[in-house]
């Protein structure tokens, strides 16, 4: 069974979680070019590597950030937004 650790609810089966995409910096819509904005809206980085992603523990609706190595499919750590400062 594949497992993930929610910062609030602890280690649970991956079926209790929903993936919500990689955290990506939003370009300033007032100053960026159309090409930069289109790249942000339409393109995703599919290259394997260590990425920060939004995940949600669905039974409790707890949103958190997971650092995951998408090449090895290994979760390195998880934390609540704001707790990594």
């Amino acid at each position, binding site marked *: 069974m594949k497992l993930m650790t929610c910062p609030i*609810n602890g280690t649970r*089966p991956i*079926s*209790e979680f929903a993936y919500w995409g990689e955290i990506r910096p939003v370009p300033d819509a007032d100053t960026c070019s159309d090409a930069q904005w289109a790249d942000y809206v339409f393109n995703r980085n599919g290259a394997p590597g260590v990425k920060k992603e939004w995940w949600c*523990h669905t*039974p*409790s609706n707890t949103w958190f950030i997971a650092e995951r190595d998408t090449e090895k499919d290994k979760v390195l750590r998880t934390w609540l937004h704001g707790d990594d400062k």
Partner: protein
Amino acid sequence: MNAPLRISPLHDVQVSHAARWTQAEGMQTPASFGADDAAKLVLAGIGDLSFRRRAGVKGAGAANWLNALGIATPPRHNSFLHMDDGTLVARLGTTEYLIEDAPGGTHADRISAATPGERIYPVPRFDAALLIAGTRAPELLRQTCAFDFDRLLPDGQALAMTSMAGVGITVLALDGPAGPHFRLWCDGTWGGYLWATLVEVAGDLGGGAVGLDALGSLAGQHNDASPWRHANN
């Protein structure tokens, strides 16, 4: 009996199974599913406590607001407490609370009627609320949920939010006259499916659906003189 004012989220799925109905807290609920309710409860009984009145609130100011209304709040996240009057207060995550009245209690109505202040958000609760009891209840839980229920010791006052038969639930363990039993809540729209699934699995274990009469003190918990009994008489 007066016409019920509240409809249980389990009513449609229970209507063809119930042998006798009663009214509890203004909600029509099965008093009995058959003559063997008590025997089922000993092995793996599924009770329906959806009639209990409850309210929810969340936000950074929720705890202080509840305290000002005279409602105690658990200090740890994912834990619960019983107030002296039997009211169950569950802390879901960090800043969300579920308050479930004991029979005849008025906290839920007072919370719903009060005006919340800043950073306090009411959470409407239309839960299906179930009770699982019996000597084979742990077996039933293992068949329907990946969570390790041994971590929910009744004296630990811990609760868990997990997935059971694919449905998101909140669950906690309580001590009863015949050993630990489990209370769980899920969104009412999933309640019929979850109830039917649990009853089917319990049936394989010699148990099944149990009406309010057989639940007895388990339905009232801290208050055995449950007002719902007056409606039944």
